[in-house]
């Protein structure tokens, strides 16, 4: 097969939603056979709509108004619906972001794959089941003969995504459209899936259109990339030069807003302002209101996607003009040794167990050891990053500290008081001192309350401000502090964007003057540029008010940027903890090593065969005997199977629980 043979050519594709919203506005793309083409952009930029337009699977109200798309010789947008059904699942396969909801819950996975097989690869009765088994083996589903008759809810998230891929491969497609295929998955599972996609591409020679918001995933997997902004492609080219020197100011700003350890102590760059509304005409460059390079010309003249060199094209008048330098704002002394300072919060052997009830009388037959003996220390004014994959119990740690779930055992010492011993009013009085910020800023605010009432509620509950006017004044000051205009206090949460909502949640937490804020995945639901704003805000507030944070997340780069110390959690226990630099630069526990290696780096030069940590996180209801990690551990020995290793302190001050780690 010729490498340069063009498989899909899209010209001037324009799609409208609800008649007026130009979700996709004149998109041109070419995808060659066998290559991985990444479509990169933040939420709402039109990347998914582009893919759904190509499949002609737009949601109701969506309409393609202009453009052409040719798959080989087939004009996709001119086919009848019946001909298009031959293409869908046949020549183009598609997988989606949410494997949890993208499979039919009442059909077995075998049935769902068989449907695609029968549709596109007709064969007599028995052959279908064999082909389904073959596909399940192809995507490395363990024990396919047994799995084929299971229902989606019996499979883990990673397994479901494999099933989705198997279904998409049934018609032996030339092109696989993968719409955020790993966004809902944990990093170690993401690494498995990305690796699988690469392997399948190698075996079948299909091209992949990878839709993602994650620069790391692009660097790790793609050959060429196109960046979308407000319905348009603003830059396109091969991955290596793109990561070497992005051309469009938007792409450049995206890179600068990525948190990582080099940027520690500096402010992250942010993209000011918001994406322009897509239901209005754009008489000028769409990015100019937010662009640091914008000049008069940008406001007068709409730039075209023009060739920059042989391989790259960019939609900007000044692709070679350097961005203004961002000032490195050094933060307060971050080098103070943590252990010398009296900790603000210390947990001792914190345990949260949930009973498993079974049988007619619902007797307790066992426990889910969600949190199983955790020791954490957070000194005043510092940040501890608690890192782990979903289901490892990290959120439960936060709730256990807050006493939102009463711990089963252990102590939570806060300012020399054991919170687990407090009840009723004593506990309520202390609640103001520890606050929490949740992952989803929208669902954590009451939609029927104004943001003023939301922020004030805690102050009223704590009896801090009796006077109504003074209270309102304080709310305004708090909102201004987090960057929300004070005159918006009578508005409702839905009137704000995701980033603004998270700022309001932060103001709500600050209202009761806490000493410690538990941040539970505060940026996971946000785009990269917005994430940067929130991280900056958290860092500023810490410096200004001496706050301590427990930063719970699965996002290693955010931790490396903001946390002073980090604790890595696996199945209810901390496996390694210590200073962030030491742990992230030189991880010692095999799980920490695998976890860090699974994080895709935004640097194609560092592209490596993604190490795949085998298997899934075991159920915390029945953790493996001995070290919980040993079934997935490359270094496991007999002693690991027998007993959970004790915590050891290494010479560099870190704590680690592993027999294989030498000091």
């Amino acid at each position: 097969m010729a490498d340069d043979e063009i498989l899909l050519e899209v010209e001037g594709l324009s799609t409208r939603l609800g008649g007026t919203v130009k979700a996709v506005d004149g998109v041109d793309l070419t995808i060659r056979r066998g290559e991985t083409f990444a479509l990169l952009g933040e939420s709402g930029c039109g990347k998914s709509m582009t893919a759904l337009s190509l499949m002609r699977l737009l949601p109701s109200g969506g309409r393609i108004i202009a453009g052409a798309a040719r798959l080989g010789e087939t004009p996709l947008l001119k086919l009848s619906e019946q001909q298009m059904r031959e293409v869908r699942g046949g020549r183009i396969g598609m997988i989606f972001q949410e494997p949890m909801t993208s499979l039919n819950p009442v059909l077995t996975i075998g049935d769902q794959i068989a449907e695609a097989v029968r549709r596109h690869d007709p064969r007599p009765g028995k052959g279908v089941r064999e082909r389904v088994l073959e596909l399940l083996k192809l995507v490395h589903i363990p024990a396919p003969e047994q799995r084929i008759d299971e229902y989606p809810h019996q499979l883990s998230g990673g397994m479901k995504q494999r099933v989705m891929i198997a279904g998409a491969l049934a018609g032996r497609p030339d092109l696989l459209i993968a719409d955020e295929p790993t966004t809902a998955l944990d990093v170690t599972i993401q690494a498995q899936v990305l690796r699988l996609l690469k392997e399948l591409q190698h075996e079948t020679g299909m091209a992949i259109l990878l839709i993602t918001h994650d620069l790391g995933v692009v660097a790790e997997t793609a050959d060429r990339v196109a960046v979308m902004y407000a319905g348009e492609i603003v830059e396109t080219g091969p991955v290596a030069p793109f990561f070497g020197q992005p051309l469009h100011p938007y792409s450049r700003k995206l890179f600068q807003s990525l948190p990582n350890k080099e940027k520690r102590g500096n402010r992250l760059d942010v993209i000011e302002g918001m994406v322009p509304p897509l239901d209005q005409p754009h008489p000028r460059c769409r990015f100019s209101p937010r662009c640091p390079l914008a000049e008069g010309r940008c406001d007068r003249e709409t730039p075209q996607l023009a060739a920059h060199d042989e391989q790259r094209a960019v939609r900007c008048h000044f692709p070679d003009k350097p961005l203004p330098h961002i000032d490195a704002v050094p933060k307060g002394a971050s080098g103070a040794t943590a252990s010398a300072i009296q900790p603000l919060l210390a947990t001792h052997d914190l345990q949260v167990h949930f009973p498993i009830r079974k049988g007619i009388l619902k007797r307790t037959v066992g426990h889910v050891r969600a949190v199983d003996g955790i020791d954490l220390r957070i000194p005043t004014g510092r940040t501890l990053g608690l890192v782990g994959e979903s289901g490892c119990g990290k959120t439960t740690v936060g709730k256990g500290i807050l006493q939102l779930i009463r711990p089963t055992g252990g102590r939570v010492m806060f300012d020399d008081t054991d919170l687990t011993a407090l009840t009723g009013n004593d506990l309520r009085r202390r609640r103001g001192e520890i606050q929490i910020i949740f992952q989803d800023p929208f669902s954590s605010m009451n939609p029927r309350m104004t943001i003023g009432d939301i922020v004030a509620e805690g102050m009223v509950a704590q009896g801090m401000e009796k006077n109504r006017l003074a209270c309102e004044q304080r709310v305004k000051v708090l909102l201004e502090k987090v960057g929300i205009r004070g005159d918006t206090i009578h508005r409702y949460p839905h009137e704000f964007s995701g980033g603004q909502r998270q700022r309001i949640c932060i103001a709500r937490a600050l209202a009761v003057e806490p000493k410690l804020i538990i941040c539970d995945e505060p940026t996971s639901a946000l785009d990269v540029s917005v994430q940067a704003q929130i991280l900056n805000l958290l860092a500023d507030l810490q410096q200004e008010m001496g706050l301590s944070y427990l930063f719970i997340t699965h996002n290693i780069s955010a931790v490396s940027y903001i946390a002073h110390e980090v604790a890595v959690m696996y199945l209810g226990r901390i496996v390694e903890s210590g200073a962030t630099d030491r742990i992230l630069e030189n991880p010692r526990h095999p799980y920490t090593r695998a976890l860090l290696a699974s994080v895709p780096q935004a640097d194609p030069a560092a592209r490596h065969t993604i190490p795949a940590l085998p298997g899934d996180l075991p159920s915390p209801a029945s953790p493996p005997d001995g070290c919980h990690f040993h079934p997935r551990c490359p270094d496991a020995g007999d002693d690991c199977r027998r007993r959970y290793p004790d915590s050891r302190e290494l010479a560099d001050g870190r704590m680690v629980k592993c027999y294989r780690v030498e000091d």
Partner: protein
Amino acid sequence: MTAYIIRRILYAIPILIGVNILTFLLFFVLNSPEDMARMHLGEKRVTEGAIASWKAERGYDMPLLYNAGAEGLGKISETIFFEKSLKLFRFEFGSSDSGRDIGHDISQRMWPSLAIAVPVLIIGLAVNITFALLIAFFRATYIDLWSVVLCVVLMSISSLFYIIGGQYLVSKLLHLVPISGYDTGISAIKFLVLPVIIGVIGGIGAGTRWYRTLFLEEINKDYVRTARAKGLSERVVLFRHVLKNAMIPILTGVVVVLPLLFTGSLITESFFGIPGLGSYTIDAINNQDFAIVRAMVFLGSVLYILGLLLTDISYTLVDPRVRLS
């Protein structure tokens, strides 16, 4: 899952006891046997003797809860609560105030009730699902819009209108079937056709509109998009994927009313002169025959509880997420 079902059955026991006590309170404490006797004997001059003999004939002369005059177990068993209320658990309904055996009456009259209720349920279900699927197929078009408007209109019209209108049109003007009455055996059909059709039509509005909502909710789910992305036709998507998921709430909604089919429909049976349990109840209310009303209230409650129990069980059968966990 067996444990789940057994637990559900155990839950039903206290509810049944509660229902029994509540019916007892309603029919013997709030409305004492004395009142019943006066009501029955009417405006005529009532003597104490007449009341006492009326009560004695029907066994209402015993104490309510505790019989101090009786021997041994009789202290408990020779009471109204034991004789009239607890025996309901064994489906011994006793005699009506006019002296007929209620249990026998019920076993006779449930068949005409079922003869109407079962076809109405089955045909209604088929018609409503078909219409709802059609509307779902034409979603977000004018067909969808006007179908919903029509459903709301159909829902808003009283069922009395359908009955009287149907009788006038079909029986009086067109002389196709008799206006009312009933017969045994195969000749019952000509009496049943009209009430069944009217029962189905009366249910179309609410049923179709509800099922349409269920279908549309499923159609917008992610797995439907996946099914389309496989290249499946809209027909397969609707029947195989959407219908199968929407059938879970539909089935459980149907199962809950299954036991209640026995008790028939009060209004339809009265208007068409069908000797079923519905008209039985209405007649009993008109005649102030509290023994029958009490029996029907208790029976209705028991059947409703049975329906809820069956719903819980059917849910575990149709939904693999419940069945396998």
